[in-house]
């Protein structure tokens, strides 16, 4: 690159520099020429300390050196802390709680020292400079554009593609086919959504149990209390089953009555009701029960369901009531389900009727 641009952007030939001659110039001049070859003019360069060896300069140098020392000390402290401070969790002795903070602080000291040293060196000791670099942008020179176009067009032309329509079509077809080959293996990911979207772990006769596998009987709950229950099956507490089968068992307070949908009037048992705990909005477990009003709040997005009104959403973003589980008490006096939920639990999806 032997041209540079003046301010109007007109290329100016750069004075040819003889490498031998360059060697005889002072280093600063050489660097200036080097910059000019790259279209950079150093318009302003000023020593931070024009008179070398002043007190101020020595002070600046010492400050930078102090920063480097800080890095050294920080690194030593970091290593010592890593080796010496007790680090393992110990509920009886809180000494380990110092480990991570001391490690972080000493590491930060080591890094800060180096960072500050570099920045201060640049700001205090390296000569201040202002350089102007010309931009070369916009379209390429006309010759470059036309020759590139010629190369491209000629290349296509000599393959004969424009006139060989048979090859055009078969090439297109094969590219498409290769694309298909690339995509088809992703089919391994695809699984047909199955009935399990509509089904949970509840069946007719499955008992209700708590998270410590205790079966639930009427009388276990105080009036106005709630309990989180699961199907009392072998896998009833696995994440997979819990994710769609978790149920909230509620005992109403005396005097409270709950409205039910037509056809579900007998789903409860005396003053007990069982609803899916999975919020119909986004699937979080709706867990906060307000005994006085009979309202259930989902803490994720604040949907509120009125359990006395068929668990209808009364505020927030949920659109559907919580599905109700039909329950009764079996011969041995334990709560059992009378079948699965009458509708899919949890958030809505396309195929949901």
């Amino acid at each position: 690159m032997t041209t540079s641009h003046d301010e109007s952007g007109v290329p100016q030939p750069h004075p040819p520099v003889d490498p031998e001659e360059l060697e005889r110039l002072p280093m600063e001049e050489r660097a200036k020429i080097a910059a000019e070859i790259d279209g950079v003019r150093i318009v302003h360069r000023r020593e931070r300390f024009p008179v070398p060896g002043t007190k101020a300069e020595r002070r600046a140098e010492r400050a930078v050196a102090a920063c480097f020392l800080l890095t050294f000390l920080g690194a030593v402290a970091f290593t010592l802390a890593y080796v010496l401070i007790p680090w393992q969790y110990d509920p009886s002795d809180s000494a380990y709680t110092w480990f991570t903070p001391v490690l972080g602080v000493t590491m930060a000291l080591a890094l800060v020292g180096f960072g500050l040293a570099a920045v201060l060196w640049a700001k205090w000791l390296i000569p201040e400079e202002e350089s102007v670099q010309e931009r070369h942008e916009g379209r390429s020179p006309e010759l470059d554009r036309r020759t590139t176009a010629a190369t491209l067009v000629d290349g296509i032309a000599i393959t004969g593609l424009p006139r060989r329509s048979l090859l055009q079509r078969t090439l297109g077809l094969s590219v498409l086919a290769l694309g298909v080959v690339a995509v088809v293996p992703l089919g391994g990911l695809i699984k047909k959504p199955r009935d399990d979207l509509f089904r949970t772990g509840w069946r007719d006769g499955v008992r209700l149990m708590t998270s410590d596998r205790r079966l639930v009987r009427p009388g276990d709950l105080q009036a106005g209390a709630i309990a989180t229950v699961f199907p009392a099956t072998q896998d009833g507490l696995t994440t997979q089953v819990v994710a769609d089968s978790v149920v909230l068992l509620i005992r109403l307070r005396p005097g409270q009555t709950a409205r039910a949908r037509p056809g579900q009037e007998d789903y409860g048992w005396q003053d007990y009701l069982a609803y899916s705990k999975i919020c119909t909005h986004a699937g979080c477990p709706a867990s906060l029960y307000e005994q006085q009003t009979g309202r259930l709040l989902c803490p994720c997005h604040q949907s509120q369901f009125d359990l006395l009104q068929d668990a209808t959403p009364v505020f927030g973003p949920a659109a559907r009531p919580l599905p109700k589980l039909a329950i009764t008490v079996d011969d041995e006096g334990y709560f059992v389900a009378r079948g699965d939920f009458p509708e899919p639990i949890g958030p809505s999806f396309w195929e949901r009727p």
Partner: protein
Amino acid sequence: MTTPTTANRAEKLADWADSRLTIAAPTRRLLNKVFPDHWSFMMGEIALYSFIILLLTGTYLTFFFDPSMTEVPYDGSYSLLRGVEMSRAYDTTLNLSFDVRGGLLMRQIHHWAALLFVAAMTVHMLRIFFTGAFRKPREINWLLGVTLLTLGILEGFTGYSLPDDLLSGTGLRIAHAIMLSIPVVGTWIAYAIFGAEFPGTEIIPRFYIVHVLLIPGIILALIAVHVGLVVKQKHTQFPGPGRTEHNVIGERMYPLYGAKAGGFFMLVFAVLALLGGLFQINPVWLYGPYNPAQVSAGTQPDWYMGFLDGSIRLFPAWELRFWNYTISPILWPTVILPGIMFTLLALYPFIEARLIKDRASHNLLQRPRDVPVRTSLGAMALTFYLVLLISGGNDIIANKFDISLNAMTWWGRLSLIVLPPLAYLITYRLCLGAEQHDREVLEHGVETGIIKRLPSGEFIEVHQPLGPVDEHGHGELEYAGSPVPKKMNRLTSAGRRVRGFLAPVQDPTEVQDRSDTERALEEQVESGERRELAGRPRDPEL
């Protein structure tokens, strides 16, 4: 000072490399590259540096983390959870925090760096937007930036989902619900990604490989192109003395800019080390392993997901049912709305250029006040986003400030509609006011604070003109797109700033030094160097 031997050795090494690679010229070009300086240009740097720190700390974490959903009983040092059944992913995260020496520090630096990464990208994007740096010829880089931001958010979400704790599992469940909400193919997508009905046993291993290989690989490649384009197209600069559309004024990369940037990387790393050491983040052992039957009150995602959490909380329960099909109410706030937001964001440069018929290339940045419509649109979009973000934590706000939760929801719903247009109007007025004041100072000069009594008895304030004045005493300088000095000490007329931190610096060499600078400046002005103050006379060429 380098001794002759080291100089010789360096020369030999350089010759070794150049005789094989012929890289003397490209190396010199790179070293001589000029970077303009402005504090706001550091945002992108912070994003880049936090990404590097993410790669370093993340690699460390992979040595100890096992992304498996196999259930195991915990038997590590944290006694409170001993014997509890949990996935290997959660188990190994606990081990990282309690049984790997220094593991907790690395985990916490990683998490803080992730938060900073997305935050820095966001602020960097705002800087680009409000200064018009996205205009031709930089639209491609804007698109790359929007892609990087989106990928950064996805990377963050897949990352904090990995520990399989109660909080992240709840987040996954919501993500599952969002997938289900997509019409027609929603259940198919959910099954393809989770491999079964929620939660299955595939999601954590799959998110892991997406988090440690797929997305970081793409991000790395895109960052390379993004930065490469900045190098190729050269950095934009604010208007100022001598700065034109055809040059870039600043410091050369080597050694000045390079030293500052390298030091700045260390400083960013230091801040993250401090955060990681002192400020607890994502203490998964307090949340417990994921259990679909449990949830903690006040569940909050990482900040960059907050706007989605806000929109899903605020949106009304609009569920559509027809024939035998359902459209979920969460489709609108979590798929359609972000889709529109990010599409508008990506297309903005093209929309603006089309609307104002601007086909020119721009290398000089604009001050936000000089483009009131864009600035106001930006303020409007930002307000919309902030209302969503605040609503993402509306339960916390309701709790801490003892406000009704339902009132917070309604505040969010109404604010989403009312506040953005209001923000537009206010910003527009502010821009016009600021512009007007610039013009006023250029015409009448800077208020000096000196009150003069005229012979007629009238009191006036003396104004200091910024440049030559016409016969009416009005300034002849035209606005040039750069800050107009508005205080006397900006004109160095109200005394000089006294140097020194604790004691004034009175070193004679320093004083000497300053007068040297001033003389040099005067010489440059006399010799016709284009180093005008802001508000320079309009360049006849432009």
